[in-house]
Structures are given as C-alpha cells and as structure tokens.
C-alpha cells in the first residue's frame, strides 16, 4: 500500500506529507495542546486530519452513493465570503435556509472565513472531503439551531460523531466536557447529548447535502427532509438583541437600495 512509497512532493497546494511517526507525534501533540487551549483551531484541525484514518474514505464512499454527494465531489465548492454572498442571503424571505443561516451568523458573530485549510491528508479528494466537513461545520450548528458556546459545540460534536463517524468528533466529545463547570455539564449530558445522539444517528448523512443549492428552500422542510427535529438549544438574551439590531440594519439596507 501507500506506506511502501516515500513521496515528499505535495499532492495539492498546502499539502504537508508526513510519515507515520510524524503523523502519530502530531496527533498526540495536538490532542494535548487543544485540550489545554481549546481556542487553537489550527491544532484541532491538525488533530482531525491526523486521526481521520478510514473515516474519510468511508465518507467519500457515502458521498459517491448519493447523487447530491457526487455533484459535490465533482464541483468541489468552497464556502467562504468570496463564494457565498452573505448579503444576498440576508435579502431572502424569512423562513428560508439561507436567511436562517444569515441570522445565525449575526447572532453568533462567526464568519465563514476562519477555516484552516487541510494540510496533512495525502489524497487530494479525501483532503477535499475533510475541507468540506470543516466548512460545513457552521451549517450543522445552524440547521440544528445551536449557538457557539462550549456546551453547544460539544453537543454538535456528539451529533457529528453519530452522523459522520469522525474520530475527531469522538475525541472532542470525550475531552471537551472536562473543561465545563458542573451546571453546564449537567445541561450537556441531560438535554443536549441524548438529542444529539438520537438525531445524529437517524438523520441523513450531512456530508452529502449540497447546502449552497438549497438557500431558497424552506428551513423547516429542509429539517424534515434531513430528519432533524425538536432542537433543545437555548439562546441567550444578548444574542437575541444582536438579531433585532441586525434585522433593523437589514431592512434599512433593503429600503435604501
């Protein structure tokens, strides 16, 4: 297999080939460091890539088995502010998936530009699958209606593990709660995790969803199609205020244009 060949030429821009010792070392190192500092997104990314193993070919096969997934593999769409017109999403009618996503971006203050590119996966197609997973992570938050605080992130990690089977999701799910206080941990394990595991395992595999083609679809219809219902997430009053002021700004924009 591939371990017999020592190929140090990069297979795609940004590729950093590693041998098995380097891979293992980086996996352990990034696991330890991301536990100590969960805001190091680049280390969490490295952990995900070094521990992916057979999960990525499995996801690629799942994509190949569905027509929508095949289209994604053919087009290889990327998600960042250059490819997605965020302002246009804000003009869509209330209740559409695009509008819901835009509202979610405003409430959480997240931008789709912050995703680290993939470096440590050797096969270019599997590297794209990993990249697609990373860029769609926010969509999973939004479609499940979760915020970005720590317990919501962990709930989404449990959901992702049940839905996609990535080892990174399992590692975060086990290591993450160690950093929570008792009250948040109680919310996580009594409400969020049972929901996440139940709906994660029964809903459609989200890696096959071509989100960019569904902006105009009604979000509740989309949720029913994907079999995601009854999200237990709670949003803080501060984030609701952000939504209210953003909506005023949106209507002012559309009134003046």
């Amino acid at each position, binding site marked *: *297999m591939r371990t017999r060949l020592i190929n140090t030429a990069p297979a795609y821009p940004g590729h950093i080939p590693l041998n098995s010792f380097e891979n293992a070392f980086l996996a352990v190192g990034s696991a330890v460091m991301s536990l100590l500092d969960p805001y190091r997104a680049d280390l969490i990314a490295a952990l995900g890539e070094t521990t992916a193993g057979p999960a990525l070919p499995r996801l690629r*096969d799942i994509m*190949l*088995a569905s*027509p929508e997934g*095949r289209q994604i593999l053919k087009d290889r769409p990327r998600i960042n502010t250059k490819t997605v017109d965020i302002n246009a999403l804000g003009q869509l009618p209330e209740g559409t998936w695009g509008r819901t996503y835009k509202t979610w971006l405003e409430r959480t203050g997240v931008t789709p530009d912050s995703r680290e590119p993939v470096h440590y996966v050797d096969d270019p197609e599997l590297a794209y699958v990993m990249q697609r997973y990373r860029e769609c992570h926010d969509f999973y938050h939004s479609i499940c209606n979760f915020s970005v605080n720590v317990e919501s992130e962990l709930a989404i990690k449990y959901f992702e593990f049940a839905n996609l089977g990535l080892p990174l999701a399992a590692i975060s799910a086990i290591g993450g709660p160690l950093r929570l206080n008792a009250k948040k941990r109680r919310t996580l394990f009594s409400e969020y995790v049972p929901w996440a595991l139940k709906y994660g395992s029964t809903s459609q595999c989200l890696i096959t969803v071509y989100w960019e083609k569904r902006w105009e679809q009604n979000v509740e219809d989309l949720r029913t199609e994907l079999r995601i219902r009854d999200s237990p997430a709670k949003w803080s009053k501060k984030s609701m205020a952000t939504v209210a002021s953003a909506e005023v700004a949106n209507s002012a924009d559309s009134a003046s244009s």
Partner: protein
Amino acid sequence: MSLSLTNLRRCLARNKTFTRCISSSSSSNPQNKTTSFGFQTIPENAKESMVKNVFDSVASKYDLMNDAMSMGVHRLWKDQFVGDLKPGRRGPMKCIDVAGGTGDIALRILDFARENYADRETSVEVVDINDQMLKEGYRRFKKTMYHNTSQISFHEANAQSLPVEKFLDNSYDLYTIAFGIRNVTSIPAVLEEAYRVLKPGATFACLEFNRVDNPILGTSV
C-alpha cells in the same frame, strides 16, 4: 523531423476531428487522420489491424514477453494496481476488465476478493478484441478454481463500442483497462463506453505507462 512532431502533437490534442495533419492533401479525407502506434505514426484506420496482427502473433507467448520486457516487474505493477483498488471491500462487485486478454488483472481481482474478504460472488468479465488472447486467457483460467464458475467469462468485443445488449448501461462497479488504452484507436470512444456501462459513483481504473521523472529510469531503450 521536429516540424512533423509538432504537427503530431497538435493533431493528437484535438480529440475527434483533425483539421491539419502531416500530409498536405484535403483534411476531411479519413486516410489523413493519424494516430500513434508505439514510436510510429500511422493512419487511423490502419491501427486496429496492425494491433490485431501484433497480438495474434504473440498471444501464446504474451506473458513470457511481458516478463522479458519488464524483467518480471510487470507483476509488481499489476499487484499494486489491484491492491490499491481493493475489490470486494464493500461487498461483491461486478467488474469488467477491458483489453484483458490473458486475464492477469481478472485473476488478481478474483484472488484479492477471495483471500481478503472471503468473497466468491465478485465476477469479472474479460473483454478483448482479439480472440487469440481470449483463448489464451481461457486456457490459463482452467488452471484456477474459477474455471466453469460464474465468476469469470470471456467476451470478444471492441472497447470503443461494446454491444449494448450484452453490456448494459449502469451495470458495473469496476472497469479496469491495464496496458490497453494505448492500443485503442480512439480513447474518447473508450471513455464514453466506460462511462455508459459503469454505475454512478463506480470506479474507472487505468494502468498505463507514463513518463518517469527519475532521469536514469526515464531513458527509453
């Protein structure tokens, strides 16, 4: 000499129609379309018969010829090729091995599936344009456990136009062509047929020689 090479490259770059070719007479005459045959350039409609002549004469000694020309290394290439594909990993597959003549790849596919996944349902249909090569393949398979089973079958057909009644649309999980695509007259036609017979999401695998970057290994003898 260099002028004709440039023309050849430009001709080969246009897939279906050649507007400017080596001879200076009218360009719509099919006699003037050329294609490559090893290191020669020959008229397109002559390629099929020239290839047939070559394979008719070497069929009985084809494997010996391969061993001699590559010093046995072709076995490693074919092992690696089939090993990367991992036939049988996700269940029994229906495979078609085109230009498969003596059945090297077919045998490796069946053995891999059997040894690694205990799979005796995977089937391979060996397709070749040359009946002598198919006879040789049939003879070799008599020495294996797949003879007289539904796992192996031999068909004489042209890879550029596989008969629609026998090779149905969207019916194969794996299409392999090893050291065969250089022998066809029109590669796009072969790819069209491969696209037709493969299921959506299935695998197309081509093993072929290419330029080698290492300067010592890359010099052609």
